[in-house]
């Protein structure tokens, strides 16, 4: 089945094989550059996310694609759909902002808080202007306090971005690959093999 390919392989030599690997690597890295460049322009960690849970139905179903921006000076408003990650949690959550408070935390030079209550220091935001937020999924009955792992409010630094655009269903491939990791390995293995074997 592969005898033709193996023959041309031997004819072209080892150098050609290395060249193919380099081509493959350059395709992968240019894709990565595009992704990270987009993230830099839009000031967000991942400019395109896939909705993972059904907590925003009927607006967003599992597998929908969201385009995020996170302009640094812009205030978030109630009703915005934000994607956030709690430090210590691995998953990102897509929910709508229910309440916002603009607070100014003064610089606290006292050391008593640091010694007495370690947990308080970890949860306390650094001094300066802060926008504290509370979120809730459209399909949930209560707000997200239980998901905050001890925090009472979300801070701006927990937020990855605000959803501006929307594409339905496209992200289902990512979810399928997460649920069936064999699919991911099969796809990657097949692509790698194809890239190396093909002559162009």
């Amino acid at each position, binding site marked *: 089945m592969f005898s033709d390919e193996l023959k041309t392989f031997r004819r072209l030599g080892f150098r050609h094989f290395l060249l193919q690997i380099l081509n493959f690597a350059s395709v992968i890295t240019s894709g990565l550059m595009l992704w990270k460049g987009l993230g830099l322009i839009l000031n967000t960690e991942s400019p395109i996310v896939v909705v993972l849970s059904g907590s925003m139905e009927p607006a967003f179903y599992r597998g929908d694609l969201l385009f995020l921006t996170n302009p640094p000076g812009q205030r978030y408003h109630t009703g915005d759909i934000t994607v956030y990650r709690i430090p210590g949690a691995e998953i990102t959550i897509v929910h709508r902002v229910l309440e*916002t408070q603009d607070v100014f935390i003064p610089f606290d030079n006292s050391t008593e808080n640091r010694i007495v209550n370690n947990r308080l220091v970890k949860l306390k935001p650094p001094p300066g202007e802060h926008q504290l937020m509370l979120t809730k999924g459209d399909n949930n009955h209560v707000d997200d306090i239980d998901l905050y792992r001890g925090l009472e409010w979300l801070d701006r630094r927990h937020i990855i971005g605000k959803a501006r655009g929307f594409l339905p269903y496209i992200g289902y491939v990512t979810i399928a690959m997460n649920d069936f990791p064999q699919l991911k390995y099969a796809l990657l293995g097949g692509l790698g093999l194809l890239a190396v074997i093909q002559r162009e």
Partner: protein
Amino acid sequence: MHSIYARANGISGLWSTCVMVLLGAVALSSFLFNAESKGSLDIVSLKVFHSKTRRYPFRNEEIGFVKFNLSADLTPLFNWNTKQLFVYLEAEYTNAQGVNNTVVIWDRIVRRKDDATIDIIQKEKYKLRDLSGSFSNVLPAQYSLKYSVMPYVGVLTYGEAARTMKAIDFPDARDSVS
């Protein structure tokens, strides 16, 4: 173009290009519809009680209960690219320390054009609670009805449909049993 692989390659390339152009056109068509919607909003009653929430049973807090009279016609916002409308009623106020708060007290999802007229007198869905636990130092609040249009494909847009004429002061807190 003489092998199955080449044919499949060509067809799938053309198909994906066509789908992407179509989705882009649908997303851009949303910008042609510049509909706005107007309505009226009145606060019927606003009461503040000393209360404890179920979540923080050991804190003495003042909770605000709002009853509002809302009528809005949101049908102009529905076009072929509108999947649903998310309408929410929010209260904006500043407390004495200068902290700006915006709190959503009621929301609704509107999925069809037939359901897009709202004419209700209703109580809030989410109770008003201040970060500091008390409404005594709070400046009067403005209430507004905002909406968010969610398209089938494209950019999410926001707007405001109604607003109270003047800011409404928070009354003094009462005890619930009286």
